[in-house]
Protein backbone atom coordinates (compact mmCIF):
# COMPACT_ATOMS: atom_id res chain seq x y z
CA UNK A 1 0.00 0.00 0.00
CA UNK A 2 2.99 2.31 0.67
CA UNK A 3 3.75 2.47 -3.05
CA UNK A 4 0.29 3.71 -4.06
CA UNK A 5 0.10 7.36 -5.19
CA UNK A 6 -1.31 9.87 -2.65
CA UNK A 7 -4.54 10.41 -4.59
CA UNK A 8 -5.29 6.67 -4.51
CA UNK A 9 -4.53 6.57 -0.79
CA UNK A 10 -6.80 9.58 -0.25
CA UNK A 11 -9.65 7.81 -2.05
CA UNK A 12 -9.01 4.66 0.00
CA UNK A 13 -9.08 6.75 3.20
CA UNK A 14 -12.48 8.10 2.19
CA UNK A 15 -13.74 4.55 1.72
CA UNK A 16 -12.17 2.88 4.76
CA UNK A 17 -11.83 5.39 7.61
CA UNK A 18 -12.42 5.23 10.52
CA UNK A 19 -12.65 1.42 10.65
CA UNK A 20 -9.43 0.75 8.73
CA UNK A 21 -6.50 3.16 9.13
CA UNK A 22 -3.98 1.43 6.85
CA UNK A 23 -4.45 3.82 3.92
CA UNK A 24 -4.22 6.79 6.27
CA UNK A 25 -1.00 5.46 7.79
CA UNK A 26 0.46 4.92 4.32
CA UNK A 27 -0.47 8.50 3.39
CA UNK A 28 1.21 9.78 6.55
CA UNK A 29 4.27 7.69 5.73
CA UNK A 30 4.55 9.29 2.31
CA UNK A 31 3.99 12.91 3.31
CA UNK A 32 5.26 13.23 6.88
CA UNK A 33 8.81 14.25 5.94
CA UNK A 34 7.62 17.09 3.73
CA UNK A 35 5.03 18.30 6.23
CA UNK A 36 7.59 18.22 9.03
CA UNK A 37 10.27 20.01 7.00
CA UNK A 38 7.89 22.84 6.12
CA UNK A 39 6.66 23.07 9.72
CA UNK A 40 10.23 23.12 11.00
CA UNK A 41 11.24 25.97 8.69
CA UNK A 42 8.17 27.98 9.60
CA UNK A 43 8.11 27.28 13.35
CA UNK A 44 11.82 27.30 14.04
CA UNK A 45 12.06 24.47 16.55
CA UNK A 46 11.88 20.74 16.41
CA UNK A 47 9.22 20.40 19.13
CA UNK A 48 6.94 23.07 17.66
CA UNK A 49 7.33 21.53 14.20
CA UNK A 50 6.43 18.09 15.47
CA UNK A 51 3.40 19.44 17.36
CA UNK A 52 2.15 21.23 14.25
CA UNK A 53 2.82 18.24 11.98
CA UNK A 54 0.74 16.12 14.37
CA UNK A 55 -1.98 18.75 14.27
CA UNK A 56 -1.94 18.74 10.45
CA UNK A 57 -2.37 14.98 10.18
CA UNK A 58 -5.09 15.00 12.85
CA UNK A 59 -6.93 17.54 10.66
CA UNK A 60 -6.35 15.33 7.63
CA UNK A 61 -7.85 12.37 9.49
CA UNK A 62 -10.93 14.40 10.43
CA UNK A 63 -11.34 16.19 7.11
CA UNK A 64 -10.35 13.79 4.35
CA UNK A 65 -13.91 12.49 3.98
CA UNK A 66 -14.93 16.00 2.88
CA UNK A 67 -12.14 16.41 0.33
CA UNK A 68 -13.96 16.76 -3.00
CA UNK A 69 -11.08 15.83 -5.26
CA UNK A 70 -8.64 13.19 -3.98
CA UNK A 71 -6.21 14.23 -6.74
CA UNK A 72 -5.69 17.45 -4.77
CA UNK A 73 -4.71 15.70 -1.55
CA UNK A 74 -1.03 16.72 -1.63
CA UNK A 75 -1.84 20.39 -2.28
CA UNK A 76 -4.55 20.28 0.37
CA UNK A 77 -2.19 18.85 2.99
CA UNK A 78 0.51 21.36 2.08
CA UNK A 79 -1.94 24.23 2.54
CA UNK A 80 -3.14 22.76 5.83
CA UNK A 81 0.49 22.67 6.96
CA UNK A 82 1.20 26.30 6.11
CA UNK A 83 -2.10 27.57 7.52
CA UNK A 84 -1.77 25.51 10.71
CA UNK A 85 1.73 26.88 11.31
CA UNK A 86 0.65 30.46 10.54
CA UNK A 87 -2.26 30.08 12.99
CA UNK A 88 0.12 28.75 15.66
CA UNK A 89 2.51 31.64 15.09
CA UNK A 90 -0.34 34.14 15.31
CA UNK A 91 -1.56 32.58 18.55
CA UNK A 92 1.94 32.66 19.92
CA UNK A 93 1.98 36.36 19.02
CA UNK A 94 5.72 36.64 18.65
CA UNK A 95 8.59 35.33 16.60
CA UNK A 96 10.04 32.02 17.73
CA UNK A 97 12.88 32.68 20.11
CA UNK A 98 16.26 32.49 18.54
CA UNK A 99 17.67 29.84 20.84
CA UNK A 100 14.90 27.49 19.83
CA UNK A 101 15.76 28.12 16.20
CA UNK A 102 18.94 26.10 16.35
CA UNK A 103 18.56 22.77 14.58
CA UNK A 104 18.41 19.69 16.80
CA UNK A 105 21.79 18.36 17.81
CA UNK A 106 21.44 15.24 15.69
CA UNK A 107 20.93 17.38 12.59
CA UNK A 108 23.86 19.67 13.34
CA UNK A 109 26.29 16.88 12.64
CA UNK A 110 24.84 16.12 9.24
CA UNK A 111 27.18 17.12 6.46
CA UNK A 112 26.07 18.51 3.11
CA UNK A 113 25.21 15.96 0.48
CA UNK A 114 27.89 16.36 -2.16
CA UNK A 115 27.71 14.24 -5.31
CA UNK A 116 31.24 13.08 -4.55
CA UNK A 117 31.81 12.72 -0.79
CA UNK A 118 35.54 13.13 -1.31
CA UNK A 119 35.00 16.55 -2.88
CA UNK A 120 34.20 18.26 0.46
CA UNK A 121 37.22 19.40 2.43
CA UNK A 122 36.93 19.95 6.20
CA UNK A 123 37.09 23.70 5.52
CA UNK A 124 34.17 23.46 3.10
CA UNK A 125 32.11 21.46 5.57
CA UNK A 126 32.87 23.97 8.35
CA UNK A 127 31.94 26.87 6.08
CA UNK A 128 28.74 25.14 5.04
CA UNK A 129 27.77 24.62 8.68
CA UNK A 130 28.49 28.24 9.50
CA UNK A 131 26.40 29.36 6.55
CA UNK A 132 23.50 27.06 7.45
CA UNK A 133 23.48 28.22 11.08
CA UNK A 134 23.57 31.83 9.98
CA UNK A 135 20.76 31.37 7.45
CA UNK A 136 18.53 29.67 10.02
CA UNK A 137 19.32 32.28 12.63
CA UNK A 138 18.47 35.17 10.32
CA UNK A 139 15.33 33.44 9.09
CA UNK A 140 14.08 32.97 12.64
CA UNK A 141 14.73 36.60 13.53
CA UNK A 142 12.44 37.87 10.78
CA UNK A 143 8.81 38.41 11.60
CA UNK A 144 6.66 35.35 10.91
CA UNK A 145 5.05 36.88 7.81
CA UNK A 146 8.40 37.63 6.19
CA UNK A 147 9.80 34.25 7.15
CA UNK A 148 6.71 32.52 5.78
CA UNK A 149 6.89 34.01 2.30
CA UNK A 150 10.64 33.41 2.05
CA UNK A 151 10.32 29.78 3.11
CA UNK A 152 7.49 29.20 0.66
CA UNK A 153 9.07 30.96 -2.29
CA UNK A 154 12.85 30.70 -1.93
CA UNK A 155 13.29 27.49 0.04
CA UNK A 156 10.33 25.43 -1.13
CA UNK A 157 9.87 27.12 -4.53
CA UNK A 158 6.08 27.34 -4.39
CA UNK A 159 4.38 29.29 -7.20
CA UNK A 160 3.32 32.88 -6.52
CA UNK A 161 -0.32 32.05 -7.12
CA UNK A 162 -0.31 29.29 -4.51
CA UNK A 163 1.37 31.55 -1.95
CA UNK A 164 -1.17 34.28 -2.65
CA UNK A 165 -4.02 31.83 -2.09
CA UNK A 166 -2.50 30.57 1.16
CA UNK A 167 -2.09 34.11 2.46
CA UNK A 168 -5.48 35.15 1.08
CA UNK A 169 -3.99 38.24 -0.55
CA UNK A 170 -3.60 39.38 -4.15
CA UNK A 171 -0.86 38.24 -6.48
CA UNK A 172 0.72 41.72 -6.66
CA UNK A 173 0.73 42.08 -2.88
CA UNK A 174 2.33 38.65 -2.59
CA UNK A 175 5.18 39.61 -4.93
CA UNK A 176 5.66 42.87 -3.09
CA UNK A 177 5.84 41.06 0.28
CA UNK A 178 8.36 38.59 -1.08
CA UNK A 179 10.58 41.35 -2.43
CA UNK A 180 10.43 43.29 0.84
CA UNK A 181 11.10 40.13 2.86
CA UNK A 182 14.20 39.43 0.74
CA UNK A 183 15.50 42.92 1.43
CA UNK A 184 14.76 42.56 5.16
CA UNK A 185 16.63 39.25 5.13
CA UNK A 186 19.58 40.83 3.30
CA UNK A 187 19.91 43.66 5.86
CA UNK A 188 19.80 41.26 8.79
CA UNK A 189 22.17 38.78 7.15
CA UNK A 190 24.66 41.50 6.32
CA UNK A 191 24.65 42.75 9.91
CA UNK A 192 24.79 39.32 11.59
CA UNK A 193 27.03 37.43 9.16
CA UNK A 194 28.98 40.08 7.22
CA UNK A 195 31.80 37.67 6.35
CA UNK A 196 29.34 35.42 4.48
CA UNK A 197 27.68 38.17 2.42
CA UNK A 198 29.12 38.66 -1.07
CA UNK A 199 27.92 42.02 -2.42
Amino acid at each position, binding site marked *: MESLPPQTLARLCQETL*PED*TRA*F*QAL*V*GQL*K*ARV*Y*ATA*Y*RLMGSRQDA*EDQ*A*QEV*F*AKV*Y*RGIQDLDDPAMVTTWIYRLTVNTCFDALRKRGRSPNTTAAA*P*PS*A*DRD*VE*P*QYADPNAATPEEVAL*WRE*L*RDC*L*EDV*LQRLDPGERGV*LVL*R*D*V*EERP*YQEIAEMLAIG*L*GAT*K*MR*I*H*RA*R*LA*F*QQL*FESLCPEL*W*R*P
Partner: protein
Amino acid sequence: MPATNEEFNLAELADGTLAGPEWEEWLAVRPDLAAEVAAARQVRALLGELRAVPIALSADFEAALMERVRRDATLLGLLDLWLASFGRALLELIGALFGVPPAAAPAAAQ
Protein backbone atom coordinates in the same frame (compact mmCIF):
# COMPACT_ATOMS: atom_id res chain seq x y z
CA MET B 1 7.52 48.12 -19.93
CA PRO B 2 5.33 48.22 -16.82
CA ALA B 3 6.91 50.92 -14.68
CA THR B 4 3.96 51.34 -12.31
CA ASN B 5 4.26 47.85 -10.81
CA GLU B 6 7.96 48.03 -10.14
CA GLU B 7 7.88 46.18 -6.85
CA PHE B 8 5.93 43.29 -8.35
CA ASN B 9 8.49 43.02 -11.13
CA LEU B 10 11.44 43.11 -8.77
CA ALA B 11 10.39 39.87 -7.06
CA GLU B 12 10.09 38.13 -10.41
CA LEU B 13 13.30 39.61 -11.76
CA ALA B 14 15.13 38.28 -8.72
CA ASP B 15 13.98 34.71 -9.21
CA GLY B 16 14.16 34.70 -12.99
CA THR B 17 10.43 34.48 -13.65
CA LEU B 18 10.98 37.70 -15.58
CA ALA B 19 14.14 37.56 -17.65
CA GLY B 20 15.61 38.64 -20.94
CA PRO B 21 17.61 41.43 -22.50
CA GLU B 22 14.69 43.88 -22.38
CA TRP B 23 14.51 43.46 -18.59
CA GLU B 24 18.27 43.83 -18.22
CA GLU B 25 18.04 47.09 -20.19
CA TRP B 26 15.15 48.15 -17.96
CA LEU B 27 17.31 47.53 -14.89
CA ALA B 28 20.38 49.16 -16.43
CA VAL B 29 18.69 52.55 -16.41
CA ARG B 30 17.47 52.07 -12.83
CA PRO B 31 20.64 51.43 -10.82
CA ASP B 32 18.90 51.64 -7.44
CA LEU B 33 16.41 48.96 -8.45
CA ALA B 34 19.19 46.92 -10.07
CA ALA B 35 21.00 46.89 -6.71
CA GLU B 36 17.83 45.66 -4.97
CA VAL B 37 17.41 42.89 -7.52
CA ALA B 38 21.06 41.84 -7.13
CA ALA B 39 20.63 41.64 -3.34
CA ALA B 40 17.37 39.73 -3.70
CA ARG B 41 19.02 37.28 -6.10
CA GLN B 42 21.74 36.61 -3.57
CA VAL B 43 19.19 36.11 -0.78
CA ARG B 44 17.32 33.64 -2.95
CA ALA B 45 20.53 31.76 -3.75
CA LEU B 46 21.49 31.63 -0.07
CA LEU B 47 18.09 30.40 1.04
CA GLY B 48 18.22 27.74 -1.65
CA GLU B 49 21.12 26.22 0.32
CA LEU B 50 18.62 25.27 3.03
CA ARG B 51 17.00 22.78 0.67
CA ALA B 52 20.05 20.55 1.17
CA VAL B 53 19.66 20.50 4.96
CA PRO B 54 18.20 17.16 6.01
CA ILE B 55 15.45 17.53 8.59
CA ALA B 56 14.80 14.26 10.39
CA LEU B 57 11.55 13.36 12.10
CA SER B 58 11.57 11.54 15.42
CA ALA B 59 11.18 7.79 15.07
CA ASP B 60 7.97 7.64 17.10
CA PHE B 61 6.13 10.32 15.11
CA GLU B 62 3.67 7.91 13.48
CA ALA B 63 3.00 5.96 16.66
CA ALA B 64 2.28 9.19 18.56
CA LEU B 65 0.04 10.41 15.73
CA MET B 66 -2.02 7.21 15.61
CA GLU B 67 -2.40 7.31 19.38
CA ARG B 68 -3.67 10.88 19.13
CA VAL B 69 -6.04 10.02 16.29
CA ARG B 70 -7.48 7.12 18.30
CA ARG B 71 -7.85 9.34 21.36
CA ASP B 72 -9.60 12.06 19.31
CA ALA B 73 -11.92 9.47 17.76
CA THR B 74 -12.81 8.11 21.21
CA LEU B 75 -13.51 11.61 22.52
CA LEU B 76 -15.71 12.38 19.50
CA GLY B 77 -17.56 9.11 20.03
CA LEU B 78 -18.14 9.95 23.69
CA LEU B 79 -19.30 13.44 22.74
CA ASP B 80 -21.78 11.96 20.25
CA LEU B 81 -23.05 9.58 22.91
CA TRP B 82 -23.33 12.37 25.46
CA LEU B 83 -25.21 14.63 23.04
CA ALA B 84 -27.62 11.83 22.14
CA SER B 85 -28.23 11.07 25.83
CA PHE B 86 -28.62 14.77 26.62
CA GLY B 87 -31.11 15.18 23.77
CA ARG B 88 -33.14 12.22 24.93
CA ALA B 89 -33.14 13.48 28.53
CA LEU B 90 -34.23 16.94 27.33
CA LEU B 91 -37.17 15.46 25.43
CA GLU B 92 -38.16 13.44 28.47
CA LEU B 93 -37.99 16.57 30.62
CA ILE B 94 -40.19 18.49 28.16
CA GLY B 95 -42.63 15.59 28.18
CA ALA B 96 -42.68 15.53 31.98
CA LEU B 97 -43.15 19.32 32.27
CA PHE B 98 -45.98 19.54 29.76
CA GLY B 99 -47.58 16.26 30.63
CA VAL B 100 -47.52 14.71 27.17
CA PRO B 101 -44.97 14.49 24.39
CA PRO B 102 -45.57 17.09 21.60
CA ALA B 103 -46.47 14.38 19.06
CA ALA B 104 -49.38 13.21 21.20
CA ALA B 105 -50.78 16.69 21.80
CA PRO B 106 -53.50 16.75 19.02
CA ALA B 107 -55.01 13.48 20.23
CA ALA B 108 -54.99 14.63 23.82
CA ALA B 109 -56.74 17.90 22.89
CA GLN B 110 -59.79 16.09 21.57
